[in-house]
């Protein structure tokens, strides 16, 4: 069992990703004496108030001033502390992108960023508080590790793993009551950079990340009723990407659908496309997510449906991709 996982959170089914994160952070505070938590007037919203209560001297609320937030974290990391910064994804990845780049990544500072309310998970708040660009921004930062856990359990495992991971890590989580994907904290293997194979299949692969993963599993089950064999990968780490798992899917199914609560430009789907293109192997790829538009207001689950990132949308896409006739030739040897 990984360091930090000698405890369990029994009530995880009833907790949001952010609440679980708050619990885990507090536990880690006892384990890592140099861990400090920073936020920008979002201690309540990012659920790290519990850490503040247990470690008032190691908690820093800088007010609504995100540029200073990352600068301070950089200085702390340079001087023996382990800063964990929590704020909304829109502010961490966009408002102060240059500070994350220059103060954290460029200077190789060991800062962990937990970005809540990512994608469209803050439904009714609208585009200013959604973030459908962060995977693109963070992927482009040299040295940044990018993770999008699927549920509260994965969030807990990702945060624990990030503590022992050398270098900056960006973990994007949701806001709402994402349904649990896993049964418990230790019912699955979690390793940064290793996709979780949720379902084997031979006709098509659905690669999902973050809060779209449970819908992908549901879609696979629905398609199975129609006689289709759907492989499902939970690609929780967008960078470094699991080339092996993606290539296995390419070779086994030659049809891939990616699903992400993010703009389809330069997000997880694009990262998968890079892998496929570099391999020289032929594969149909359909990217589900926001099709280069700003998000509408709505309940978080409704938005998944609206943007066809839920089980219904994925099943529809499976139907479309299965109809595509992309290569009559079954011989792989002529490709590269």
């Amino acid at each position, binding site marked *: 069992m990984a360091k930090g996982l000698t405890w369990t959170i029994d009530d995880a089914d009833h907790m949001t990703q952010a609440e679980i994160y708050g619990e885990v952070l507090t536990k880690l505070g006892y384990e890592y004496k140099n861990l*400090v938590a920073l936020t920008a007037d979002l201690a309540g919203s990012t659920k790290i108030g519990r850490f503040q209560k247990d470690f008032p001297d190691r908690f820093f609320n*800088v007010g609504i001033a995100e540029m*200073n937030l990352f600068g301070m974290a950089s*200085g702390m*990391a340079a*001087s*023996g502390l382990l800063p964990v910064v929590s704020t909304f994804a829109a502010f961490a990845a966009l408002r102060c992108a240059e*500070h994350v780049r*220059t103060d954290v990544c460029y200077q*190789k500072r060991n800062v962990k960023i937990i970005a809540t309310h990512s994608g469209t998970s803050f439904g009714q708040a609208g585009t200013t508080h959604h973030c459908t660009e962060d995977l693109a921004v963070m992927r482009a930062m040299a040295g940044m590790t990018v993770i999008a856990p699927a549920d509260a359990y994965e969030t807990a495992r990702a945060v624990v793993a990030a503590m022992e991971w050398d270098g900056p890590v960006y973990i994007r989580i949701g806001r709402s009551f994402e349904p649990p994907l896993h049964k418990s904290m230790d019912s699955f293997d979690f390793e940064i950079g290793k996709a979780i194979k949720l379902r084997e299949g031979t006709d098509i692969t659905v690669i999902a990340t973050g809060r779209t993963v449970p819908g992908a599993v549901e879609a696979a089950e629905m398609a199975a009723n129609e006689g289709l064999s759907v492989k499902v990968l939970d690609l929780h780490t967008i960078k470094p990407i699991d080339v092996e798992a993606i290539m296995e899917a390419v070779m086994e199914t030659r049809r891939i659908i990616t699903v992400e609560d993010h703009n389809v430009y330069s997000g997880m789907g694009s990262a998968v496309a890079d892998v496929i293109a570099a391999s020289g192997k032929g594969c149909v790829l359909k990217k589900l997510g926001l099709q280069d538009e700003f998000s509408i207001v709505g309940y978080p689950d409704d938005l998944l449906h609206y943007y066809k990132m839920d089980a219904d949308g994925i099943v529809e896409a499976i139907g479309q991709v299965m109809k595509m006739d992309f290569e009559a030739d079954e011989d792989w040897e002529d490709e590269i």
Partner: protein
Amino acid sequence: MALKPAELKKLKQTALRIREQIVEVTYTCGGAHIGGAMSQTDIMVALYYKFMKFDPKKPLLPTRDRFILSKGHGGVGHAVILGYLDCFDKKELLDFNKTGSPFGMHLDWLKVKGVDASTGSLGHGLSIGIGMAIAARLQNKKYHTYVVLGDGELHGGPNWEAIMAAAHFKVTNMTTFVDRNKLCIDGPTEEIMGVEPLKDKFEAFGWKAVEIDGHDFEQIVDAVEQSHKETEKPFVIIANTIKGKGIDFMEGLAKWHYAGLDEEMKKQALASLRRMNKNG
């Protein structure tokens, strides 16, 4: 404690050597941020040669005092000082700005020994300094953090986020300078975007602020000593300086923010530095 005459003489001599070397590097590398490097030199010479606990042979010692040049374009001046302290072989400075050199206009701590933070983009250094100072406090470490800000840099919002935070978190184990040379790239700060009344602004943000002549070692030393005694508020020293200080044809002119020197100009610059040093 007032500076002894011998000590004062030594600081002045050191500053002259550093300025001469900045001229040499500017000449060799084809261009550098010479104006601002000249204005900051006396402040930095006082810090490195009089105050800072810093072992050039062990530049990452956890107990060392921290120095952050938030006005990162002054990197050429910082690199020359670190070279003179023997953090690395001075000869390496001749490669400044060249392809593959560890030294570019803006210094990177991962490449240049003795640098504590990679700066260049303005509005970053003070926040980093606050982080370092708070880390000292949390871990019961005794090191002191020094930050040098530019004045044009203060146009930017991130500084004011940091200025507010330093007072809120009562960061008193840090001394901040503003190299107030009154010029940014496009002209006088007060014409481009006024920063005055600067002392009042810092005070309104909860700082203790003093204003000095940034080329007078006695005033610099006195102000730094005062900052060490402050226990309630973060301390800023607004150092009135002259861009291009010591080189008569450069002083007070914005166009020397970044420039190159030909052989004749280099000779004139060195002559001016020596003349002014004798007179001042």
